[in-house]
């Protein structure tokens, strides 16, 4: 004990940038899907290895955290994914890792949580991603739901069925008609087909070797679920599996999907030091809860919150990547902000209705696509990635485009 102790060092906040993101092709979560006989953890492992191959300028020992999300953390998605993935990918033993679950916003949370570590100075570079092999792990399978939810009427039991919550949104907002939802879905398929033809999908895909005992080894190189032939007439009379006489059909829902995503984040100063590409700068993020019965509305309060933190308004946002769990859920968001159903700023490459939605992985897919759109739209300064989350949450991340003329930069003066 001395009379004059040294002052405690204080950290200054640093910027976090999105360096790169990749994903597996998405597969049909069925026994005949392309990943039916492929392990979930292997999907992420191959992505991490590809990210490192794409960035030889990134020394693996500088990775400070590996966060991997999955909604169902058992079987081939069990055993602390972030750590197992690091070991299986051949990262140095010193690189730590952990698993994350925020249902559909798992990968998004892996990004925001490890971004927090970077801001704190606990890590310079992180890997964040997610995986969901819904063929191996049907949603909610094996979950032991607390009886209090029902006994105390905390949540309508039907709110655990995501399709039912989509029907509830149609009830809550009668102006969101089935026809609008169908039109949105048809447009999503068309936008995806166009993006694919224009070469906007493939660069982010990592081919995955897949084995089938019956067919032998093959290579998954493309998304399996899109239906480019979709028309209004073709889907008008589809069944409504979530409610007799309902409005939500398979065509306006994201299909059950197997797939994984991974991304690299870095402190702005670290990116500059190592010469890592900067594809987006993280501006702000927020998560917010809503009534579980209309979980699809979650992006609205989350976006309000994230914009408020950033000091921006929705008018400042030039590109939107919103997860299409259900068409009606996207429409509820667009209506709230007075954005047209077919606004070209929204989901330029199509969305989960076409590609699929491997729950905990989708967040990073939104970011990877937004990053590519930023390159193609230097006139846009800000964009958001947002998604709804089961049991009533939403998450939104606001990003700045480094290609914009007024880009604020990502290295602070003091550094």
């Amino acid at each position: 004990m001395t009379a004059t102790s040294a002052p405690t060092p204080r950290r200054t906040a640093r910027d976090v940038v999105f360096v790169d993101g990749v994903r597996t092709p998405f597969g049909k979560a069925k026994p005949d899907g392309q990943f039916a006989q492929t392990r979930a953890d292997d999907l992420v492992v191959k992505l991490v290895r590809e990210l490192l191959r794409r960035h030889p300028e990134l020394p693996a020992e500088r990775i400070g955290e590996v966060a991997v999300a999955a909604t169902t953390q058992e079987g081939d998605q069990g055993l602390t994914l972030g750590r197992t993935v690091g070991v299986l990918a051949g990262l140095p033993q010193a690189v730590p890792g952990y698993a994350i679950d925020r249902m559909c916003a798992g990968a998004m949370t892996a990004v925001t949580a490890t971004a927090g570590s970077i801001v704190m100075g606990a890590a310079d570079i992180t890997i964040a991603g997610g995986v969901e092999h819904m063929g191996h792990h049907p949603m909610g399978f094996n979950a032991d739901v607390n009886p209090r939810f029902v006994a105390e009427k905390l949540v309508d039991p039907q709110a655990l069925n995501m399709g039912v919550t989509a029907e509830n949104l149609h009830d809550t907002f009668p102006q969101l008609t089935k026809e609008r939802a169908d039109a949105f879905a048809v447009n999503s398929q068309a936008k995806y087909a166009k993006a694919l033809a224009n070469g906007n999908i493939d660069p982010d895909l990592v081919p995955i070797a897949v084995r089938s005992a019956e067919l032998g080894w093959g290579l998954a190189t493309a998304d399996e679920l899109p239906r480019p032939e979709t028309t209004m007439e073709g889907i008008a009379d589809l069944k409504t599996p979530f409610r007799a006489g309902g409005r939500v059909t398979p065509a306006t829902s994201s299909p059950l999907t197997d797939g994984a995503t991974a991304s690299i984040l870095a402190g702005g100063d670290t990116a500059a030091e190592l010469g890592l590409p900067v594809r987006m700068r993280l501006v702000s993020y927020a998560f917010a809860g809503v009534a579980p019965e209309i979980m699809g509305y979650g992006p609205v309060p989350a976006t309000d919150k994230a914009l408020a933190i950033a000091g921006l308004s929705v008018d400042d946002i030039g590109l939107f990547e919103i997860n299409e769990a259900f068409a009606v859920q996207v429409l509820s968001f667009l209506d709230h902000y007075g954005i047209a159903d077919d606004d070209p700023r929204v989901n330029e490459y199509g969305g989960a209705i076409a590609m699929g939605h491997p729950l905990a992985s989708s967040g990073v897919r939104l970011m990877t696509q937004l990053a590519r759109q930023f390159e193609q739209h230097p006139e846009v300064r800000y964009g958001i990635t947002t998604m709804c989350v089961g049991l009533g949450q939403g998450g939104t991340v606001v990003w700045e485009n480094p290609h914009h003329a007024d880009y604020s930069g990502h290295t602070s003066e003091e550094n």
Partner: protein
Amino acid sequence: MTATHQNAPAERVTHALVRDVVLPGGAGTLALVTLDNGFDHTKPNTLGPQGMAELSAALEGLRERAAAGELAAVAVTGKPYFLAAGADLKGATAIETYDDALQLGRMGHQAYSVLGELREQTGVPTFAFVNGLALGGGLEVALNCDYRTVASDAAALGLPEVSIGLVPGWGGAYLVPRLIGIEKAIEVIFTRPMTQKPYKPAEALEIGLVDAQFEAADFLEQSIRWAAQVVTGEVEVPRRELDPQPVWDAVVAGVRKQLDATVGESRPAPGRALDLVAAARTASRAEAFAAEDVALADLIMSDEMRASVYAFNLVQGGKRPHGAPDPELARPVTRVGIVGAGLMAAQIAFLFAQRLQVPVVMRDLDQERVDKGLEFVRGTAEKLVSRGKLSPGAAARIVGAVSGTTDIQEFASCDFVIEAVTEVMGLKKKVFAELEGIISPEAVLATNTSALSITEMSADLRHPERVVGIHFFNPVAQMPLVEVIHAARTSPEALATAFGVTKKLRKTAVLAGDRPGFVVNRLLILVMGKVLEAIENGTPVEVADRALAPLGFPMPTFELTDLVGPAVADHVLTSLREDLGDRIPASPGLKKIVAEGTPIVLDRPAKGLPKPVDPAVQAQFGEALAPGATGRNGTPVLDGPGVLDEVLTATAQEIGLMLEEQVVAGPQQIDLCMILGAGWGFHTGGITPYLDRTGYSEKVLGRRLLEDGVANVPAT
């Protein structure tokens, strides 16, 4: 060809599954063939007639597609962990006619021909993605392709054919020396198989057997990417020029000389393989492959090949010991005591600590000996770490697990105690009696004796049923065999414990009865004794030393005696003669050698050649006499063939007695023991197939030891 053998076992068919893969970078379509027998990793892909016909048909289909311009590349890979383990040996040994044997070679060449010819015919290159184990015909699939990648975790690559009486006859003998050069080819085709050391992936890359190695985590993805780069010309794979003819010839001549000295006439396969390799430089592909077919057919129809496959199967099956009691009966072993701290004891201590991962305590009479034993354990651990054979962590655990003491009370908490003290009955009995007062009634007592009666050793104990023999061979770490000895009163529990322990030690255990010398020493020392007996009678040492060459033993008699140590050899020979009688020869000359410390062998004339007997050793036996003259024992002096005849006659007789005495369950156990404990060759099938095929069992015992066809080409 299948129609002709009704007796052929059902083939576990390896299917050829074909899928199209889109190559990255717009490089076109790759047709990917997966070899998969539909079973899990415990049943490797093997290549039999049906599977080869499927592969042939699949590749013919791809030939058409390639010709039609649909394909940019063709590749072959395997189910997880395996490309293929080689030809279906069960099917090969069931072949009854020469024509069928000829067909086996042709079938391979026909199936693989597409892989070898496609680029020439259509411009479409072929690739092998060696994702796992690739041996023999399995590696030859890859060798016939234009390019090869290997996964960093592939268990083994190699051409072991020569070791099982065959030649790499599906293209290997022709392609390997042309691909990697004649010198490396000799290593691949001869040296490695004979020492049973297949290649690790990195080694295979280094010598050029494969062109690229990728990590297991995304091996196939990277292999496909690499293939695309080869297709587009982005990656070029250089090929070496053929070695000049004089170099080729000189290397072949050198190997020929070595084979003459080591293999001689004992088996045909190495010589046939060398003939093919010698011709590979100038032969056309068609000529070379036709010669491979003939060599394969000749060898498949040879007794040496049949005996080799019999031996190979014995060794493979040795992991499930014959006659072992229910493993459930085994007592838990949580702390091991070793009586003695000498060289044998310390080797055993190291192995127990390493494999059983339990505390091991060595006890000897004085601290100096104890310290020496512990020093051996520490030194061994350090040596293995420095050679990269042991991790520092594992080494620390082993060294930490072994303790030493002079206090026999330290054995009180051991549940398994093995003695390795000097081979003196009185001493061993004293040790056991002392131990019985200390250890718990359930503890198992084992002895590492090689010559003494375990039944007698345990006769005075209160619990003789807990005593079992576990006979290790020197050097303990390297020798794969352990004889587990069932004494007269050994309980099933003690026996099960011994088998449980030897399994964990990763040794092959053979159950033997409590008879002098058990199996290996009884036959090995008998053979040595018969050779010495001939010398005592007047056969020149040089003649006697080489007399057994036709058997193709790992080394001549005097080199073996030198390795065992003349004193040990004399001790065992004397004790066997005491127990078994006069048919075990006496050798006063050997006693003189021991007494005077006479050197018995000279240095090797060159690496890989045997050590010749030192001619000076003749003096210890008396002068050499002319063959046919009356010898010192009053019988005619034997020439080389005469010595061999005597040895084989005595061996057949001894084996007949051993089977009568029920030392082991059958001839197979004797063969397994001689293969693993004495290094007797696969081509002799251990020994009983050789005695059968040379007529010695008929002549001496009046019957075959093994059924006709089990380890030979059956009489039609």
